[in-house]
């Protein structure tokens, strides 16, 4: 699993590749904390090459989301693999942020 994070003023772009599981979800937590501590108000998640996410990984995203909207932040999944899209839809995360399948 690898995570690429770019923060350009108010927009943070995060690209996650591979499988996000319980063993590597702390890497995601660290990257999300970086976004939270920056000036970014929009997080664009590119999950096209992310093949699946464990509940620990989803937990990290939700915890971040709660804090991020607290500072008027917004999250958008700009690209998503089919398996992650199905998982997010099943967990109703599409009620929280826009999820684009790509």
């Amino acid at each position, binding site marked *: 699993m690898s995570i690429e994070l770019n923060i350009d003023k108010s927009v943070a772009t995060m690209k996650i590749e591979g499988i996000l599981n319980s*063993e590597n979800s702390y890497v995601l937590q660290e990257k999300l904390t970086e976004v939270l501590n920056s000036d970014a108000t929009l997080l664009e998640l590119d999950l096209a090459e992310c093949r699946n996410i464990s509940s620990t990984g989803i937990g990290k995203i939700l915890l971040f989301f709660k804090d991020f909207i607290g500072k008027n932040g917004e999250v958008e999944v700009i690209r998503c693999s089919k398996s992650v899209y199905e998982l997010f839809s099943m967990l109703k995360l599409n009620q929280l942020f826009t999820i684009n399948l790509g």
Partner: protein
Amino acid sequence: MLVVDDSASIVSSLCKVLDLSGYHVEPACSGIDALRKLHQTHYDIVICDIEMPELTGLDFLQKISRDFQDEVSVILMTGFLDQEYFINAIRLGAADFIRKPIDTKQLLSSIEHILGKRKIKDEYHEFQQYLQSADFSFSIMPVNFSKSNLFNALSSFLRHNFKIDQQVLNELLLCMDEMVYNAYIHGTLQLDQQERRLDYATLQAVISHKLSDPVTAARRIRLRIVINRNEDCVMIEVDDDGDGFDHHAVMQKVLSEQDLSLVEHGRGITLLCHLAHKVEFENSGRRVRITKHLSNGGTSKPASI
């Protein structure tokens, strides 16, 4: 076999040559296209150009090495051989190099050599296909849990022992990850919600402290993987020495939940129900068992309980 090059004419002519030589071969127009195909279907050998837009041969090799370890052999095609590039490619696990323009004889000889080396592994896989069932049991000591990368180890174990569709394998690994991690965090360490939300370094310190207690350190996580060829399914069972939990209540909540819940309880079970075909609990929630069919790829139906 997969041939990857951004030049359609090279891909087409190589596919023709390999097809005429009796190999089943498919084309890919880029490294990204090839990775997508590799995550859907198993290929023994990938013949790949070094210079490609978006994803170079080395980047491609790195991703193959990360996702498939040594299950896929990569032959790199190149017009030049820079020493540093060559060393990097070897380190990343390139199986062979072929000079451009392609000498067909050299390519076929390279393929035969690689296939020869894979023969023993293939015979073992063939033997596995004839087995009615296989039953593996593991006992995991919590003190060693965070020192080992269980996910990668089990991924490698399943890849080496059984030919399983890539998507099914990923889903099985995620189920296993959910089950074993829950047995560790909840059953063994009994971490509360606040502790689970700590940053990585602080959490590791809390875990070390918990494991200094001999009672906690003596607990075990037992993992059982049963592959049943007759019923074309895999059963994964995990049990721990913790206090268990009210699985009836959690299951009821998971099954009746209509709206999004940000509450942490039950998300892992929801995920298991999504990925597996059957989820069962025993022993007051200390044992969880999932069953997943092998042949129908990804899961779209909710599991039966």
